[in-house]
């Protein structure tokens, strides 16, 4: 007990000291540092989700280059620090620890998964560093603290939209569900199931799988087939959705598929081709959208990387752009950046109009798309 007290005293002394030191030196030091503003972009740059982290990296680097060429933010250049959290909760806390201790880092774009974002959030909150996740849709994420922001509809918003579409538009009464067994998958499933049941649908089966491990879905599919649903809802990423769709086809089973906006990735069609034909999904970014800012972004991205930007690239692009527009107001200060970011209203991004509500969650309009002739097409606006 006594030892503990000593420890606490010691730690608080160090913290107090750190506060004093950073309080008096960090600001002038920053301004001297050739007028740079450092923003960290964190996501899985390696590992089995690396494609999402790479999308973050590509989109934010594109934007930073563009902003810097146009003179930067109030004369200061944006400097990105790309950080790898391997989509792992432990690794996420490690990199968060590293970032908060680097006083030059003014804001963080990341992390990718709700699991990583949730794990890292207490560290950012304690240090007072903005954590703006482009993709974490777990409802609990932004309630971890006042410095947590997200730029994606929560499953609490997306789930009911999906359920409404399934029951009212598609007129499906018997629905089966397969979900990925992680924070995101569980909330996606729960929100969809409760909304669908409230609309009078009958949920015939709810099956889970472990992401990155389960490759064989034949027992699950055979089981679901036996419950005779007329729609299968998939709360899964594109890679597993592709596998599930292919194995459904291999088992000679014919059922309509519905997925979330996380499936909006060209890779899904390349992966599963005819097996995902007819699949419905929600979305708030559509590369064929004729509006000027979307086409401008798609064009720039294609020129730089030779591929069309996906949902993850688009939302990371918007996230950084929002942070930059907040920085123009706040200057390079962690706490002021938070306040300026929270003020953002009707920001016209490539992923639709964005406003933060009082919980720092966003409300974005969603459209329904369908895969037709090997392409994502607009189904209902």
């Amino acid at each position, binding site marked *: 007990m006594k030892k503990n007290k000593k420890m606490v005293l010691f730690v608080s002394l160090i913290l107090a000291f750190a506060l004093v030191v950073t309080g008096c030196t960090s600001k002038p030091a920053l301004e001297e540092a050739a007028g740079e503003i450092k923003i960290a972009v964190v996501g899985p740059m*390696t*590992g*089995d*989700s*690396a*494609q999402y982290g790479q999308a973050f990296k590509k989109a934010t680097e594109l934007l930073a280059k563009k902003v810097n060429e146009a003179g930067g933010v109030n004369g200061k250049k944006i400097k990105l620090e790309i950080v790898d959290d391997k989509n792992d909760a432990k690794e996420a806390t490690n990199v968060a620890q590293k970032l908060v201790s680097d006083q030059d880092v003014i804001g963080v774009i990341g992390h990718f998964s709700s699991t990583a974002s949730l794990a890292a959030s207490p560290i950012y909150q304690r240090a007072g560093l903005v954590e703006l996740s482009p993709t974490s849709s777990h409802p609990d994420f932004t309630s971890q603290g006042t410095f947590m922001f997200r730029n994606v509809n929560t499953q609490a918003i997306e789930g009911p939209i999906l359920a409404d579409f399934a029951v009212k538009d598609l007129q499906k009464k018997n629905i089966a569900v397969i979900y990925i*067994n992680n924070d995101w998958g569980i909330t996606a499933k729960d929100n969809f199931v409760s909304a669908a049941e409230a609309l009078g649908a009958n949920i015939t089966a709810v*099956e*889970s*799988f*472990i992401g*990155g*491990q*389960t*490759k*064989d879905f*034949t*027992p*699950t599919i*055979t*089981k679901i087939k*036996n419950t005779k649903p007329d729609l299968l809802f998939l709360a899964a990423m*594109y*890679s597993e959705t*592709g*596998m599930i769709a*292919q*194995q459904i086809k*291999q*088992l*000679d089973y014919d059922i309509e598929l519905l997925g979330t906006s996380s499936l909006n990735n060209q*890779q899904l069609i*390349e*992966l*599963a*081709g005819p097996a995902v034909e007819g699949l419905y999904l929600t979305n708030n970014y559509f590369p064929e959208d004729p509006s000027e800012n979307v086409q401008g972004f798609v064009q720039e991205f294609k020129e730089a990387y030779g591929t069309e930007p996906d949902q993850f690239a688009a939302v990371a692009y918007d996230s950084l752009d929002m942070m930059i527009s907040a920085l123009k107001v706040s200057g390079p200060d962690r706490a002021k950046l938070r306040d300026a970011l929270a003020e953002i209203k009707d920001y016209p991004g490539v992923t639709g109009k964005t406003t933060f509500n009082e919980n720092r969650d966003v409300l974005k309009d969603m459209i329904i798309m369908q895969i037709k002739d090997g392409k994502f097409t607009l189904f209902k606006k």
Partner: protein
Amino acid sequence: MILQQLINGLTLGSTYALTAVGYSMVFGILELVNFSHGSVYMVGAFLTLIFLTSLKLNFFVSFLLSIILTGLLGILIDKVSLYPLRRKNAPKVTALISTIGVSIFLQNLVMLVWGSETKNFPLVINPGAVELMGVKVSFLQMIIFSMCLVIMIGLNTMIQKTRIGKAMRATAQNAEAAKLMGIDINRVIMITFFIGSALASVAGTMVGMYYQTIDPYIGYMAGLKAFAAAVLGGIGVLPGAIIGGLLIGVIETLSAAYINSGYRDAIAFAVLVLMLVIKPSGLLGKQVSKKV
């Protein structure tokens, strides 16, 4: 439904068995748990895919090239990461850790070169399916299943009947004595690694084609399951690897179908532990007294 689930399970089991045979053979001869086997399996699948899609080669040519290259990779792994340890008489556990290192290296190398996205593996040979009593069995499933049997019988014959097989058995019994009898044990080990890795490429390609997708992570779970299958059947005993693989596949499928799909691996491995407690040497394994 139970019949269809059994077929699902047997196919899944055959994919494990196919991988387990190579695992078991390397262990039988070197007494080395080769954890890089799973990654070699993944590399084999990727090589076939790259020859097939990037170089647009014929499937059988791609497959053959992949088998040979993966076999050579096996030799390289031995020369780089295991031979130096053997020469220094390092304990066996060092070699085991070394293979884990190789496994991680290969996984990251493939990710670096080809990216981490899940890739489509085209169904190049699609021989169709037959329906028996309401159960659908595809010919690809049958090919995978019979491939296991052919490989097992072929390997068994080679080990029991041929000169090199004899040398392998001698090396397995006592490498020192084998050396004294004029057997070039480094050559024997090289051949063992070549065959084991070539088989991994066969397994990787077949499984990739069956599921039509591959990613750099397929080796991890496949390696683990194959290892479990080999241990369950009695490691070093080739028919045991087949039986172990089929058993794990069926248990996993049935637990996903009738208990809970989230616990399929947990249940399969719990059964493995239970069986090993009852029969530590595995189903077909013989209790051998350890040489002192």
